[in-house]
């Protein structure tokens, strides 16, 4: 789990962060400013500084924030000058946007704020729709506006080209002032509260945020257009409110609450993807009328509030459909404020001691949690200081009266309050405390350290109307505080400058007034924290920081997190505690070495000369029996109860072998089948909601595409059997310990990771080992993709795009105990979506409705329409998964959707499009729900950038040299990992490699040849990549195969193969050392999903459809046979394990075959193999060679893992 940060502000306005893995509050890197409020999310933090300006702190990242500006240059042909800038009067501007409607010259583009810089000058984009254009990047057409082609024809009268320029956001890891371009008259008055959230309202575009702010006049503002590429947003828009707002809180999703002066809360309704600002407010009354709501904080499904008497309240029954909730529940504890962060976790600042408290035990089923626990983490600066703090409590009791008197006097006597500064404990430095404007005014004139602006404004503040009203009411001291805000609320027309000082007064007044009203002693303690002990020096030395504000919006805590916040630890530096892949000292310790050495000496001494002695205990047969269910291989195919027995015996050589017997009844007759476990090639867990089942393949069963399927009654029982069977398989093959560096890794579509040890015969003809004989064993973890090299460096990517690095361990998952390494196994989690479809048909009466024709599919179905899938009956993929979100409409569907997520078509099943036309009679929309798996395996997360693709150089010359590793982020950025070595396979940082468009695939060959594929299907070769220049210099656009768009590329030693979006596999011809780009694409095969080219130029693929003797499989591992230096495309396919396989990497296997054998067989193959192939696939056209044969009519249910 990546570390995340809890943000907090102490009473001096200093901003601190506390890492979920840390034990110390760390001072924010940018310490220039003091802050009143902060609101954090994962990627940034917004705050209001003491100058009442809004600042955004965007975390630095290896990937820059870039924005592409574009403009078009348009030209028309005339007989005199050819193409020239002179356009017809009716034409568009010479420089325009893509539509031609807007005039945009190159110099009209300016940077939006000082926080941006240009990356380079303007240049012409020479890529059109994935195809390189001829020089100059011109595209031609008959006239504007029209479709443009890259070729100039006789009738091409106009042409245009696209200029692009990137700007880059540079103000990262510092507080960047949010400048406003708004009309000065419309400018918001100074802000008093801010809240950031809303990133889950929509999945895309990534990085969209809702930033809400409250100004001193009580108005609510919404910041427009904040997204990943525009972290500052563009302008503030005013959102009308029913009263004057004081404070606001925005959840990650559509929950937004604010508090009003009058003590009620207002709830925003109608916030959704199309309308992130929402539509209207509704009012929620406070728990009791005498104590209004002071502060509110919201999460996804929770609302917490603090009332004026400092009591904490939890709102019951809050969700998207009912953002108001139903009723208040009083919680234990008295808090200054509470803040709801990620996962609906809650933090608060306690009234008594101003410590930050964490609410323990908050889970989706128990959102209110169990108890408050104080965070006692020290500050970095504290670690050396030991001075004991003066007893806060006694100090508070002693001074509480003075304080009250003094602050009350601010209410009564308005201007001359400095005379009240009698208490010797009140230090002039008090004024530095950000939110204590009132007190500041008492001493403001004597202090030089106070910001001049504040003091002067305070001094200038007439404070006439408000104090007068307050003193009118002050014969009843209790009412004063409550009425005071009301009075200010009436003064909405006051100038902004005056207003904001008022607000500070209110802030300061509220507390003492409260202490005067409801309870005298205890709550005055809270004000004590702010007033009485104000000596900064003193606090600097204090072990116990006093906090003013906390924000957990970027802090991810879940039930598995182990936090070190609650105990004070000394000595260890935070950095020491971070997980590290380097070998721990214990493993290298001398004592350990000596034990290993002595044990082997002992064995030698005591056993070597006596092996002929008889063993005291005869090795007997050990049998495990049990009852399972078996998917009958004969008709009728159904689950049948069977008795199973695993007989384990040990041969004289000490090697164990086992036989699995399955006893069943067939027509009243007892029968059995048996499997020798040394023939089993793989055991695959097949989890679905109905059965705890697993499949068992042998080479024969792989050929049939018909495994033995067994099911157990419980998950535990299945795991017991699987663990035992897989241990027996490994034992009989004498495989133990971690996979070798040569290992072939693969991933199923369920995310299970399998690894196979390649034998030398795998790539060495003539006695090529068929790949259905490969033995696969499972490694714990859940991944979508895995890549390795022959030095043992392995990386994976999860379904949630998290990057993981292999730790060198083995086991994990259900493989526990002895078959699993003790070290190097860590918790891993992954998140994916389950999709269901809502289908509707149009009828003349009611329009689109959920009443279909009798022949229609289910109105709630899976993608095929064959299976009914309602929101209620759809379960997570297996019991290992649990829901982590509610159902939401998915707008990220190919073909596009309308504003409500609908896709239209003439009829089911058809191709859907995102807008309604006259001919559309049906529509559907996709609902998604996120689910999460928690498992473990030999993987460590590589935060923070999430990835889409990854590649590692197959080998490198020396061990000291950093290993080249490239990746594509899930946003499409191309990245190059620095510092990857054998000692540190995770590397140190990413180097961003600029591209003009998002990428999807990258691969690096043995000689640093880097090929990559962009999202639009265009292919690029990266020039000049070398160990000295790891990122190379520039991209060369490679034309795609005719009419095809590529989607994945893999580069071996010299071979380059690519897969297009239609499943064709292409080989790049004509690559030479002097011309590494090659000349053209040569077709190899169809029905290919993914390709992996290894360091021997061996070609392995995941094939889409493979015909077995009994069943068809999708997602099958296939090996290209007959690949020779002179025949790099190979000859035919050898079919391995499948279906249900998603990814394979053979880039670790560099076990070279003997040269002689190679030569000899190349002839043999070229003579024999094509003959066989033509026989099988004759008459299929010129692509028949090595084509994957498909027969659609076959039954698919024999497959263990269906796609």
């Amino acid at each position, binding site marked *: 789990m990546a570390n995340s940060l809890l943000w907090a502000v102490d009473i001096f306005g200093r901003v601190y962060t506390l890492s979920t893995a840390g034990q110390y509050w760390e001072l924010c890197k940018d310490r220039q400013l003091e802050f009143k409020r902060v609101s954090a999310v994962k990627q940034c933090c917004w705050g209001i500084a003491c100058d009442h300006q809004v600042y955004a702190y965007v975390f630095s990242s290896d990937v820059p924030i870039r924005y592409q500006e574009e403009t078009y240059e348009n030209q028309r042909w005339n007989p005199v000058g050819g193409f020239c800038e002179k356009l017809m009067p009716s034409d568009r501007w010479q420089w325009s946007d893509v539509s031609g409607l807007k005039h945009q010259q190159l110099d009209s583009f300016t940077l939006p704020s000082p926080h941006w810089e240009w990356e380079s000058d303007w240049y012409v984009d020479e890529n059109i729709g994935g195809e390189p254009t001829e020089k100059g990047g011109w595209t031609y057409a008959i006239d504007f506006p029209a479709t443009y082609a890259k070729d100039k024809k006789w009738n091409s009268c106009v042409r245009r080209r696209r200029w692009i320029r990137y700007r880059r956001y540079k103000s990262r890891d510092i507080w960047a002032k949010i400048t406003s371009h708004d009309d000065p008259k419309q400018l918001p008055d100074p802000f008093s509260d801010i809240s950031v959230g809303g990133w889950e309202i929509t999945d895309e575009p990534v990085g969209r945020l809702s930033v809400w702010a409250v100004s001193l006049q009580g108005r609510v503002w919404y910041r427009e257009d904040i997204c990943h590429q525009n972290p500052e947003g563009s302008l503030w828009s005013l959102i009308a409110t029913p009263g004057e707002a004081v404070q606001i809180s925005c959840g990650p999703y559509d929950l937004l609450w604010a508090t009003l002066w009058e003590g009620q809360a207002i709830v925003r309704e109608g916030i959704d993807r199309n309308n992130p600002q929402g539509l209207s407010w509704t009012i929620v009354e406070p728990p009791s009328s005498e104590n209004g709501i002071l502060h509110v904080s919201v999460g996804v499904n929770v609302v917490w509030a603090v009332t004026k008497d400092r009591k904490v309240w939890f709102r019951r029954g809050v969700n998207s459909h009912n953002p108001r909730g139903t009723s208040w529940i009083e919680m234990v504890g008295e808090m200054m404020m509470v803040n709801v962060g990620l996962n609906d976790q809650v933090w608060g600042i306690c009234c008594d001691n101003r410590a930050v408290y964490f609410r323990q035990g908050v889970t989706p089923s128990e959102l209110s949690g169990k108890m408050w626990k104080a965070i006692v983490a020290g500050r970095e600066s504290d670690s050396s200081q030991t001075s004991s703090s003066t007893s806060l409590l006694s100090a508070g009791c002693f001074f509480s009266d003075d304080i009250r008197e003094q602050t009350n006097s601010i209410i009564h006597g308005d201007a001359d309050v400095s005379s009240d500064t009698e208490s010797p404990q009140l230090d002039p430095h008090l004024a530095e405390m950000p939110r204590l404007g009132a007190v500041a005014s008492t001493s403001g004139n004597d202090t030089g350290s106070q910001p001049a602006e504040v003091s002067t404004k305070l001094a200038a503040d007439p404070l006439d109307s408000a104090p007068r009203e307050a003193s009118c009411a002050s014969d009843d001291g209790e009412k004063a505080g409550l009425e005071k805000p009301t009075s200010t609320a009436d003064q909405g027309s006051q100038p902004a400058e005056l207003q904001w000082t008022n607000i500070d007064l209110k802030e300061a007044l509220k507390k003492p007034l409260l202490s005067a009203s409801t309870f005298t002693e205890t709550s005055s303690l809270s004000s004590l924290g702010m007033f009485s002990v104000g000596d900064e020096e003193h606090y600097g030395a204090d072990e116990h920081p006093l906090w003013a504000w906390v924000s957990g919006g970027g802090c991810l805590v879940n039930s598995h997190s182990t936090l070190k916040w609650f105990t004070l630890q000394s000595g260890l530096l935070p950095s020491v505690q971070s997980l590290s892949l380097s070998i721990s000292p214990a493993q290298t310790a001398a004592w350990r070495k000596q034990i*290993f050495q002595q044990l082997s000496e*002992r064995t030698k001494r005591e056993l070597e000369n006596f092996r002929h002695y008889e063993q005291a205990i005869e090795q007997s047969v050990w049998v495990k029996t049990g009852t399972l269910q078996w998917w009958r291989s004969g008709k009728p195919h159904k689950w049948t109860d069977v008795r199973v027995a695993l007989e384990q015996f040990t041969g004289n050589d000490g090697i164990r072998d086992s036989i699995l017997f399955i006893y069943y009844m067939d027509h009243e007759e007892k029968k059995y089948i048996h499997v020798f476990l040394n023939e089993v090639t793989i055991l695959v867990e097949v989890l679905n909601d109905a059965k705890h089942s697993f499949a068992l393949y042998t080479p024969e069963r792989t050929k049939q595409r018909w495994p033995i399927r067994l099911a157990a009654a419980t998950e535990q029982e299945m795991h017991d059997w699987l663990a035992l069977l897989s241990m027996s398989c490994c034992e009989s093959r004498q495989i133990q310990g971690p996979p070798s560096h040569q290992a072939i890794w693969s991933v199923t579509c369920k995310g299970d990771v399998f690894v196979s040890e390649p034998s030398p015969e795998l790539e060495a003809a003539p006695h090529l080992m068929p790949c259905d004989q490969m033995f696969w064993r499972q490694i714990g973890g859940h991944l979508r993709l895995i890549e390795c090299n022959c030095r043992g460096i392995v990386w994976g990517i999860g379904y949630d795009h998290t990057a993981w690095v292999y730790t060198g361990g083995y086991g994990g998952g259900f493989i526990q105990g002895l078959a699993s390494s003790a070290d190097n196994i860590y918790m891993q989690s992954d998140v994916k979506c389950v999709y269901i479809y809502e289908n509707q048909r149009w009828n003349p009466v009611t329009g689109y409705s959920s009443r279909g024709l009798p022949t229609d599919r289910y109105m709630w179905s899976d993608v095929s329409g064959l299976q009914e899938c309602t929101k209620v009956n759809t379960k997570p993929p297996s019991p290992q998964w649990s829901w982590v979100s509610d159902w939401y409409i998915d707008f990220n569907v190919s073909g596009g959707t309308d504003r409500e997520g609908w896709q239209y078509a003439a009829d089911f099943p058809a191709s859907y499009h995102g807008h309604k036309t006259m001919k559309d009679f049906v529509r559907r929309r996709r609902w998604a729900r996120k689910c999460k798996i928690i498992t473990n395996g030999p993987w460590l997360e590589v935060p923070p950038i999430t990835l889409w693709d990854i590649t590692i150089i197959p080998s490198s010359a020396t061990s000291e040299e950093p290993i080249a590793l490239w990746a594509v982020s899930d946003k499409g950025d191309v990245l190059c990992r620095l510092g990857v070595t054998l000692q540190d396979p995770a590397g140190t940082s990413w180097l961003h490699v600029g591209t003009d468009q998002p990428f999807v695939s990258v691969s690096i060959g043995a000689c640093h040849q880097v090929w990559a594929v962009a999202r639009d299907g265009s292919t690029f070769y990266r020039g000049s990549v070398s160990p000295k220049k790891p990122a190379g210099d520039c991209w060369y656009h490679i034309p795609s195969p005719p009419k095809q768009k590529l989607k994945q590329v893999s580069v071996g030693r010299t071979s380059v193969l690519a897969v297009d979006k239609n499943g064709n596999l292409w080989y790049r011809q004509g690559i030479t050392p002097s011309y590494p780009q090659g000349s053209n694409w040569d077709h190899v095969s169809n029905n290919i999903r993914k390709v992996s080219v290894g360091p021997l130029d061996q070609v392995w693929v995941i094939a889409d459809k493979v015909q077995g003797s009994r069943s068809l499989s999708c997602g099958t591992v296939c090996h290209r046979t007959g690949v020779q230096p002179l025949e790099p495309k190979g000859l035919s396919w050898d079919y391995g394990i499948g279906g249900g396989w998603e990814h394979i990497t053979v880039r670790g296997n560099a076990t070279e075959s003997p040269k002689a054998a190679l030569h000899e067989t190349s002839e043999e193959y070229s003579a024999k193999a094509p003959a066989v192939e033509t026989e099988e696939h004759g008459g299929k056209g010129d692509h028949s060679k090595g084509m994957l044969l498909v027969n659609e009519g076959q039954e698919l249910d024999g497959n263990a893992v269906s796609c």
Partner: protein
Amino acid sequence: MTDDKDVLRDVWFGRIPTCFTLYQDEITEREAEPYYLLLPRISYLTLVTDKVKKHFQKVMRQDDFTEIWFEYEGTPLKWHYPIGLLFDLHASNTALPWNITVHFKNFPEKDLLHCPSKDVIEAHFMACVKEADALKHKSQVINEMQKKDHKQLWMGLQNDKFDQFWAINRKLMECPPEDSGFRYIPFRLYQVTTERPFIQKLFRPVAADGQLNTLGDLLKEVCPAAVTPEDGEKKNQVMIHGIEPMLETPVQWLSEHMSYPDNFLHISIIPQPTD
């Protein structure tokens, strides 16, 4: 590739080549040939000597064939000590095979316990396992186990099934992640030179200052005499499973990896051989 798991295997598959000779005074019908056997270090004499019994039964009169007991160089061998411990304690640094004398007559009542059946060994073994878990986990782990798990531990030992045994024993060797070790380390310290059969005390794997206690720390606290002084000559060998771990070895690691199947660390302290 060395892994801590390999230590478990090495410990389990430790074998001592042994030559069983019938005591000269035993009355036989024919001459009794010596019998050679590889004894598992981690097992018990009476559990693995069925073959020895059968061998000598053939040459003896039925009447004289009573309860078997073993002796090495005049010392009766306690069957309730693991074989490896007996060997380390009495016969280490001697030539192999280990010469054990087989007796039927004159059972040394004051030195040995009777072992009428394998149930007695099982009872003794399980009692040790339970005692060890009481020290390690306040008996929480062993009490949570089912009867069949207890049986599997015993059957694993009896049939020399490493996997069968460790599938269960692994749970006994776990400690909660928030603790850095067991509550107390189950160990017994044996010396031939003293009358006392063994020393057993409460000893924590982690010192008060958070440092891991080592084998050396344990000896210093429990049996200071066995520790070689800084500058002094080494007088004793500290032996577990026939090897001398360094005194820097953490006892928690030793307990997890080098305990006998009864979950105790049996440590022998024997005089340093003079040659």
